[in-house]
């Protein structure tokens, strides 16, 4: 078992003929992900990835003809909000948006529309996710993973790779690794993913990688204290970062004391979660918590 994607995932790639889309789709195919279709408006009828994947003009066509049940979006920021809405309108239940630089007010509309429809959105501005040895969606390098009992969720990109590599080097494998994205408004929160890992029978322990800003880590800590009995370890990036240039009085009022590395660390430790000083310490913290 794993969460969100697995061997039954039939992936569509929106923007499959672009430079990024093509490069990473090839890597996904090599990992064993089943890519059933691509969408690039105006290129319907062509074949992508050396003739291996049919391209459609619209997501609705792609879904009707291939039964795609998840999509990965690589289109430029100006077109990404529409791409997410198109996927949701075509009833794709899982949308993973890699694109960075999507305007926040666009995301506000997309977030609420997809939520009302029941579409699960991961990202935007995220590296995607990997269910180890089953399916990889996005841009996380496949070869850093090894199959095992730990679920990992992170707000970062390359920092996620760093932690996965550290775990693999220490002989500690993963079920699914998920990057939820670092933008102010993302489709899926830490709490959503923690809940999935908590209910996944194969995930025996959970790693959470946060960073300064916002209050998602504090909310996650409260959720874990209430719901999660699996061993956990965490890392928070940004202890030495300068305090964010303040966003007027309203920003200070909204955030209260939340958002600093220290407040996040305290909230997590209060919830019984071990917080590492370095990503490389995470495997040992999990071992201390009883993970093999």
């Amino acid at each position, binding site marked *: 078992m794993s969460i969100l994607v697995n061997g039954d995932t039939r992936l569509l790639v929106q923007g499959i003929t672009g430079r*990024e889309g093509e*490069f*990473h789709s090839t890597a996904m195919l090599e990992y064993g992900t089943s890519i059933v279709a691509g969408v690039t408006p105006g290129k319907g009828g062509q074949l992508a990835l050396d003739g291996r994947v049919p391209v459609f003009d619209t997501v609705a066509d792609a879904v009707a003809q291939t039964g795609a049940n998840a999509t990965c979006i690589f289109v430029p*920021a*100006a077109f990404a909000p529409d791409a997410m809405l198109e996927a949701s309108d075509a009833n794709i239940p899982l949308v993973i948006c890699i694109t960075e*630089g999507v*305007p*926040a*007010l*666009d995301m*506000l509309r997309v*977030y*609420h529309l997809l939520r009302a429809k029941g579409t699960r959105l991961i990202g935007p501005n995220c*590296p995607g996710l990997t269910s180890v040895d089953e399916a990889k969606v996005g*841009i*996380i*390098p496949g070869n*850093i993973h090894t199959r095992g009992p730990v679920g990992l969720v*992170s*707000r*970062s*990109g*390359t*920092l*996620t*790779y*760093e932690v996965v*590599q550290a775990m693999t080097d220490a002989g500690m494998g993963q079920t699914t690794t998920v990057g939820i994205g*670092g*933008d*102010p*408004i993302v489709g899926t929160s830490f709490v959503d993913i923690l809940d999935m890992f908590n209910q996944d029978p194969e995930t025996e322990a959970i790693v959470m*990688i946060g*960073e*300064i*800003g*916002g*209050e998602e880590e504090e*909310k996650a800590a409260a959720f874990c204290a209430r719901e999660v009995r699996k061993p956990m370890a965490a*890392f928070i*990036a*940004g*202890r*030495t*970062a*300068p305090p*964010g*240039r303040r*966003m*007027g*009085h*309203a920003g*200070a*009022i*909204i955030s*209260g004391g939340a958002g600093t590395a220290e407040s996040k660390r305290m909230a997590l430790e209060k919830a019984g979660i071990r917080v590492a*000083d*370095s*990503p*490389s310490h995470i495997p040992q913290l999990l071992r201390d918590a009883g993970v093999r």
Partner: protein
Amino acid sequence: MQQEKAVKLQEYRSKEILARHGVPLLAGQIAATPEEARAAAADIGGPVVVKAQVLVGGRGKAGGVKLAATPDEAEQKAREIIGLDIKGTVVKTVLIAPAADIAHEYYLGLILDRASRAITVIASADGGVEIEETAKTNPTAILRLALHPLIGLQEHEVRRVGFFLGIPAGLRQDFAAVLRGLFNAFVSSDADLAEVNPLVVTDDGRLLALDAKIVLDDSALPRHPDLEEMRDLNEEAPSEIAAREAGISFIKLDGSIGCMVNGAGLAMTTMDLVKLAGGEPANFLDIGGGAKADRVAAAFKIILDDPNVKAILINIFGGITRGDEVARGIVEARSQLTRDVPMVVRIVGTNADEAKPILAEAQLITADSLDDAAAKAVAAAGGAA
């Protein structure tokens, strides 16, 4: 480091935008010299306020806002304020605005609240500079109202905020214009924040925005070329402007170890580990995804422009970015550098194996783990601080 991407506009620019959306205010005139300030005051007539145009908070307490009864006095106050150092920012321009006799001050702001995923109204009848104190000591004196993300500001919400603030009955229509204008300005300029503080009722019964602040969403700027031009480059460090033009996120800090990393989270982690190893990072630098030789060269230049830098730690985790390309970029750029400092290079992930011989041949200090790289960089910079 999300907030770092926000683009703050000066007061007079923020007021320009609000005025366009019907928010009543006393716009005033901008002056770069005491003589211009005098002319502006004479033009406006009557008492004026001379206000430093800086993006840092607390300018009033720092002596950057002064009342002047006459053009002579306006010139003199402008002379005092222009050139003043306010929290590290030297004042270059002042706004000369008509003075108002204030009967009451309110706070009114809109912010994109990531927690409630909504544009949220923040309002208080206790306006002025102590609003954050009020938020702590008397939170019920502050209204937070999340607006519907798809419908936007509704009439009943406008009324509710007005009643909460206790706006005098005769000014409720004017207040509706202020809040609606603020909301429209927020949405049409893709703001992260739009704030009027204070919003005042004057002795003669007018409702006016006396000060304004708008912060824009950096990601949305490409579709607002007019707003991009309002960005005040005077207040950005030259190194930060150069970085932005090269597609690099950079924030200067005070330490001695320059950092070059791909990805913001990993860049912060690298800084944290430098600190953990007993050193001090000289900067935050995210070289971005898919970096090639030209961006590596630009990053070197930006890092080495800081004379405090005694060593550079390069930490690249290849994903989109290919390790061998970065390695070649490092070797190439290094040969062109005017100043050389010890460099510790750690490249892992995509094409890391291909990067190894390139780095070895150039006799760079290498490291396999991030902890090891941080320790070596601290040693290379002359040991723990």
